């Protein structure tokens, strides 16, 4: 009996969560895929009609904007947050005295929810209340910073807020990475008289490759599922200039009673996630086998 328990305990303990994930993650992905092939409106229907919802999706200018915004937002957000995080981490890594306090300050935005970040930045970036009004109040009458209300620039305003929120977290990741680099190698390099910037570019940063990968994965899923920040900061506006796929899907499913359309946009979002995650999983699994 004990022998049997010993053999089967892990399976029994894992079974409930395995079944739950099977149903609530993969089961519902399959359900969404099914619904995306139907003409479901208010309530889901199950007669398959082909790819009509996908045709509608790609014919919709609003989806074009949302999908384009995903790439503008995603690329800028990931690249800038990583560069900024790395620079901050390197600066903090110089054995400065107040490191603990500074680290906390930079990490703190991560503790706020995106809704709070969005609301705060909405006020800061509002031309009549925030930055623009303040600088004009100082006497620079021509100063304009109206990104939030300019349909061409509003998506960049969202990028700013998202970077503010997340770069501290990236910094913490990189800081941990910097600390994990073998001190002996660095000392050896210093003895050889190699300048500090060379030490970073040639030794430390290359040895942190796994950290870059984790940071990239974390940031890219933040970017793809971004929803609350847009809702709080611009509500998708002006017009629908700052719509992202997630807000598009929400509007279709919950405001417009167009479930089939929402399901098809969700499937496209999932495919985007897969194109990022699958190569990552593949490389992870392969390196473990080898």
């Amino acid at each position, binding site marked *: 009996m004990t022998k049997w328990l010993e053999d089967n305990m892990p399976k029994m303990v894992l079974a409930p969560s395995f079944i739950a994930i099977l149903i609530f993650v993969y089961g519902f992905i399959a359900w969404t895929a099914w619904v995306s092939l139907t003409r479901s409106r208010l309530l889901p229907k199950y007669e398959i009609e082909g790819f009509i919802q996908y045709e509608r999706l790609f014919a*919709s200018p609003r989806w074009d904007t949302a999908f384009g915004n995903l790439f503008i937002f995603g690329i800028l957000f990931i690249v800038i947050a990583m560069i900024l995080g790395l620079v901050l981490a390197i600066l903090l890594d110089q054995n400065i005295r107040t490191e603990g306090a500074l680290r906390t300050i930079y990490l703190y935005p991560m503790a706020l929810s995106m809704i709070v970040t969005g609301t705060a930045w909405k006020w800061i970036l509002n031309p009549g209340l925030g930055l623009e009004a303040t600088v004009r109040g100082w006497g620079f009458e021509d100063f304009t910073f109206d990104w939030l209300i300019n349909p061409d620039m509003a998506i960049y305003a969202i990028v700013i807020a998202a970077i503010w929120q997340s770069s501290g977290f990236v910094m913490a990741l990189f800081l941990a990475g910097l600390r994990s680099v073998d001190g002996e190698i660095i000392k050896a390099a210093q003895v050889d008289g190699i300048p500090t910037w060379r030490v970073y570019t040639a030794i430390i940063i290359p040895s942190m490759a796994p950290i870059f990968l984790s940071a990239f994965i974390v940031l890219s899923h933040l970017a793809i599922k971004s929803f609350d920040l847009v809702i709080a900061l611009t509500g998708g506006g*002006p017009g*629908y200039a700052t719509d992202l796929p997630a807000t598009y899907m929400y509007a279709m499913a919950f405001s417009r009673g167009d479930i089939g359309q929402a399901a098809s946009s969700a499937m496209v979002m999932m495919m985007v996630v897969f194109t990022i995650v699958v190569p990552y999983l593949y490389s992870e699994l392969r390196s473990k086998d080898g």
Partner: protein
Amino acid sequence: MKSYITGAVSGIALLVAGAVQAEPQVEVLHYWTSGGEAKSVAVLQKEFADNGGTWTDMPVAGGGGDAAMTALRARVLSGNAPTAVQLKGPAIQEWYDEGVLADISAVAEANGWADVLPESIANHMKCEGTWCAAPVNVHRVDWIWANAEVLKANGIDMPTTWDEFNAAAAKLSAAGIIPLAHGGQSWQDATVFEAVALGILGPDGFRKAFVDLDKETLTSDGMVKVFDQMRLMRGYVDPNFSGRDWNLATAMVMNGEAAFQIMGDWAKGEFIAAGKVPGEDFLCMSTPGEGFLYNVDSFAMFAVDGDDKKQGQDLLAKLVVGKNFQEVFNLNKGSIPARTDVALDKFDSCATLSSDDMAASSSNGSLLPSYAHGMALRGAQAGAITDVVTAHFNSDMSSEDAVQQLATAVANSM
């Protein structure tokens, strides 16, 4: 032992009594949760209780009813629909098509609804000939509100044509006053758009474009003119309008920062709550042009099991369209009664104007459903139009492009 038996027997007796005297019961799903609205619902709750019913309240706040609709969907899918749900416009018929609505024709006929409701509003309450919903109120959408003092100081009368409006706006801009208070949210853009469209296309054109989705009207020269006027309107709002809530725009009119606002009659509630007097502090008029755009709130009755629930449904339907409730509720909410035989002595001048206009436009066929507030079209189609309207309003898209996009978007939403 004996006491057990008596206890059990009296318990059964109570159960039997309960079954014989079914108490009317309703569970009402609604999204009237803000101050004035919650007060209005309380009126109905009290009246229902006074008539011997039990009211189970199910308010779902948020998202202009989106959250409530999500809750409704979950309840219907799980086979446990609420008795009555705050629904409006074609959404009623959409739910009917899903086969989940009840038939309340008996109540409607017993109380002569067909005689007291304007025909086009009554049609919204019917599903393939049977009554399936009860109207609560009529909001007029095509209102233009103005600050009386500002108009007087600048020598401007309430505009009766869009040209007059444009002239007035030019004058106000020159005087350093924001001509149009507006909030850049897509439903507000759509509200202004439909008022402009009604004025320029006229009631018939409006019906063809936004009720019948007639492609020729959607791509007509008239529609180009509508978008031209929208481009002008864009110039009349202040630079900070993006994302502003409608009540903040109303406040701008109240304190004289802006002169006009185009908004439904819920804006009146804001003026009145601030102690302003209609006709003295602020003016109300229909937007330039003929016609009347309505937004009617209603309760749709869902198919339920059990006599107590069915009785509750009938009682609720009867009370909702009853004279007393229609008066008290609409005094609280700022709208006007849906039935035409309620005395309007207690209502203000804007409400009487609205009621007179409703009667007049009902007789000449210009009583039209508001597309921006989900009365004319299904959600997906109305949404597709709003997407184009708000994209045009917030960019430098040309009117011709907008009209083309409008036709494509409508075709794509079918």
